[in-house]
């Protein structure tokens, strides 16, 4: 077996040193009653070339965004992942290291996490960030846990325009956390601050999304204000690559900013692994879930980095921990750091402007093709919803038959929107491709 390094000679020498005469003897501690006593029923082993052929065959039965012109978004997006991201993630040292428990062995990872935390704080306008959460959905549950303990309140408010999957995850965690979940319905594609204000009364936090699931821009500053007035923590779920052109949650009074990191540096990968980011105001630092890297000095007074505030964590606090998380998404967050460093402030702004310009063009072309906007009054960023004049599922089927995936059928999550299609336009799309989309949707 090419992953094993022992020769027959090694094995017998080792058994001798151990003082047993067979490998089996090592397993005597297992009661015979629970032993398997047969080989596992698994398919035959594949050699490396056969394995690659087998997986290539499986992969070939998927239609990826390179083999189909795709406008599918709804939370995961076909943004360009720069080559430097691959180059950095291929480094075996990053790939095969684990959580930097021993800081002197892992200064590289620790500094990268520290740089990542800084980038997330800068993007969101927050004071502190953790080293990553599992994804854009679980960080919402994390935020509720933080808010519950910070406020002592047990109600959480979710905007109906928050990604349905994110809401579903919060609801799944809720019984364990002892949380009551309340939702605020959307009006014309966004949330009304007044309604949020009411719902947030006595709540631990209120979570809204900017841009929201429909692609519409919420009146984020008012929503944040409304939550705060009610004494609830305002939590914004934001698109990291929108923050070159859209205001930072920290600038309009949010206590927590969370989001899905995939847009910044991760491949779509059928939904994961990605990273979720969670940033907060400094008051909340000791309630943050997950790893946090901090600066310190060594015995020579030189700067170095360590995992810090560990007394929040499960391995020390056990049942009183702020979270049970240990393995996180560091490698994906590293990809995020590399992507954001590649972009820089200028690139991030340009990326946002390109998305804005292309999606504006797409809206016009689609309107001309007989697909009017679902929420014509609302401003958008890179994604928007249109009516296709027939069941969206049907429009998708026919468009795909011409090699175009036109977007997401909102009817899957929202009743009464069966004819609504959610269209995402990233910087990878071109004018010609948008024309093609209009063409197939008109047909």
């Amino acid at each position: 077996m090419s992953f094993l390094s022992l020769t027959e000679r090694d094995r017998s020498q080792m058994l001798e040193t151990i003082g047993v005469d067979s490998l089996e003897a090592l397993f005597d501690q297992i009661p015979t009653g629970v032993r398997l006593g047969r080989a596992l029923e698994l398919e035959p082993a594949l050699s490396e070339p056969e394995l690659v052929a087998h997986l290539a065959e499986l992969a070939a039965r998927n239609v990826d965004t390179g083999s189909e012109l795709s406008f599918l978004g709804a939370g995961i997006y076909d943004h360009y992942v720069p080559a430097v991201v691959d180059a950095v993630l291929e480094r075996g040292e990053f790939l095969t290291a684990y959580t930097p428990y021993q800081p002197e062995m892992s200064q590289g990872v620790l500094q990268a996490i520290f740089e990542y935390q800084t980038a997330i704080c800068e993007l969101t306008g927050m004071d502190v960030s953790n080293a990553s959460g599992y994804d854009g959905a679980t960080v919402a549950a994390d935020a509720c846990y933080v808010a519950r303990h910070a406020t002592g309140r047990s109600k959480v408010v979710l905007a109906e325009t928050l990604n349905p999957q994110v809401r579903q995850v919060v609801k799944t965690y809720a019984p364990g956390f002892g949380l009551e979940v309340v939702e605020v319905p959307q009006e014309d594609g966004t949330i009304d601050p007044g309604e949020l204000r009411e719902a947030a009364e006595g709540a631990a936090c209120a979570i809204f999304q900017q841009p929201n699931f429909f692609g519409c821009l919420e009146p984020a500053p008012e929503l944040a204000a409304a939550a705060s007035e009610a004494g609830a923590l305002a939590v914004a779920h934001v698109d990291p690559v929108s923050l070159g052109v859209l205001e930072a949650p920290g600038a309009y009074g949010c206590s927590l900013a969370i989001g899905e990191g995939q847009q910044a540096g991760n491949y779509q990968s059928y939904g994961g692994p990605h990273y979720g980011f969670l940033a907060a105001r400094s008051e909340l630092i000791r309630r943050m879930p997950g790893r946090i890297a901090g600066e310190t000095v060594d015995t020579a007074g030189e700067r170095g980095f360590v995992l810090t505030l560990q007394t929040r964590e499960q391995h020390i606090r056990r049942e009183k921990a702020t979270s049970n998380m240990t393995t996180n998404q560091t490698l994906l967050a590293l990809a995020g750091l590399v992507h954001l460093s590649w972009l820089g402030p200028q690139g991030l702004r340009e990326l946002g402007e390109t998305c804005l310009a292309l999606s504006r063009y797409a809206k016009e072309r689609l309107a001309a093709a007989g697909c009017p906007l679902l929420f014509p009054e609302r401003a958008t960023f890179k994604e928007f919803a249109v009516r296709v004049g027939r069941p969206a599922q049907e429009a998708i089927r026919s468009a795909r038959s011409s090699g175009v995936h036109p977007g997401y059928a909102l009817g899957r999550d929202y009743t009464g929107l069966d004819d609504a299609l959610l269209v995402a336009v990233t910087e990878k799309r071109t004018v010609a491709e948008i024309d093609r989309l209009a063409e197939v949707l008109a047909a």
Partner: protein
Amino acid sequence: MKLIYEKSEAGRRASSLPRPELPAGELPEELRRARPPRLPEVSEPELVRHFTALADRTFGVDTGFYPLGSCTMKHNPRVNERVVALPGFRDLHPLQEEEAAQGALELMWRLQEILAEIVGLPAVSLQPAAGSQGELTGLLLMRAYFADRGEDKRRREIVIPDTAHGTNPASVTMAGYTLVGVKTDPRGNVDLAELRAKVGPQTAGLMLTNPSTLGLFDEGIEEVTRIFHEVGALMYYDGANLNAICGICRPGDMGFDIVHFNLHKTFSQPHGGGGPGGGPIAVRERLEPFLPVPAVVREGEEFRLDYERPKSIGKVRGFCGPFGVFVRSYAYIRSYGPALNEMSEVAVLNANYLLARLKGTYELPFDRLCMHEFVLSGRRLKREHGVTTLDVAKRLMDYRFHPPTIYFPLIVPEALMIEPTETEAKETLDAFAEAMLAIGREAAEHPELLREAPHIRPVKRLDEVRAARRPVVRYQFEEHEEPSGEPAAPRQLEVQKGA
């Protein structure tokens, strides 16, 4: 080494982006970003050098031996990185129509079947993102199951032994349960007498790692099962140590009802400096209705996502879980095939060999053969020479080894938790043993060598207390105060490092 922000210069950039000639899109003024984020401004050449330098200051399995107990730091086959990068997997959108994602769905279905066979439980959900999320999911399943039976008011307690990993108690709290602890007996097994006393109608379930975090298989496991099943409680198997028993025995056959896998440990998803991971769970028939949605199901030659699970607890993560992790683990298991037991056999052989070489110099709290890992105590070195397990760990760095997990499990003073994994060569194990023995001698002859270690890393021993006292968790830009040059005494938390 400088931070990338300290290398940043206004006007530099590494990116180039399409700028179509189109009218700009409008944005409401009040939503426009006022002050740009201070992201790094570097050219591509500087960017590549920066991260190359950071990689050079990082020790991975590729760099050398990494016996971090309970973390299963085995070799990560490179073919897995090749297949996960196939565009058909890498660039597949999770909301792609099911008929256009048959390859991905089939892979997940096949992995479910494989995992079910490995642990001997019929129903699998791949969704949880890591072991600890698998734990929480499993506990939420217990809640739903007992609620469904109207027993939820009564069953409020989860029993956990004192050797348990910290995620277990933390998960219990997050699931809204009450923790009941039980001790470990002198042989390293769960104390059955205490267990009988603590288990009753109020018990929802047990969380157990077997082999335990001591690296010992619980010899009383059959009795433990009897105790819980008698009162109708459920048993949760923490699969973090599954690398010890694949193809040898199965949690399902031991009587466990719920199992989580740590794909990043047992099935070689690279640990990535902290993650990603994968924490699928497998359960008995009676718990299947409560599993997260969507379920990946097969209908004839077709594969589908089934959302119609009325009793489901819901979703614990977006989409179907960390798909890329599934691709690697599936590839890994297919490379072994039915001989997967060899993986565990050699893992156990390597551990016992190292144990045999080290137990003379370091104390062995429970004098038994071990499974895939073992726990030693540095108590004697501390008593006789005043060097701590932390000092031993730091000194190992000078011998170019990553230290084992230390100060865990908590019931062993000055614990050293060593897991070599099956992929290491005998030469490597011998070199590590020699280093550990040499350090044992140094402790007596030159204790300062240990106390001042490490000597050859890019930094000397770091001050963790200072970091926690006034946390600096992001670069401060202009206001950044230079780290004071005054040499501090090494103040490191003698707390669990690893696992």
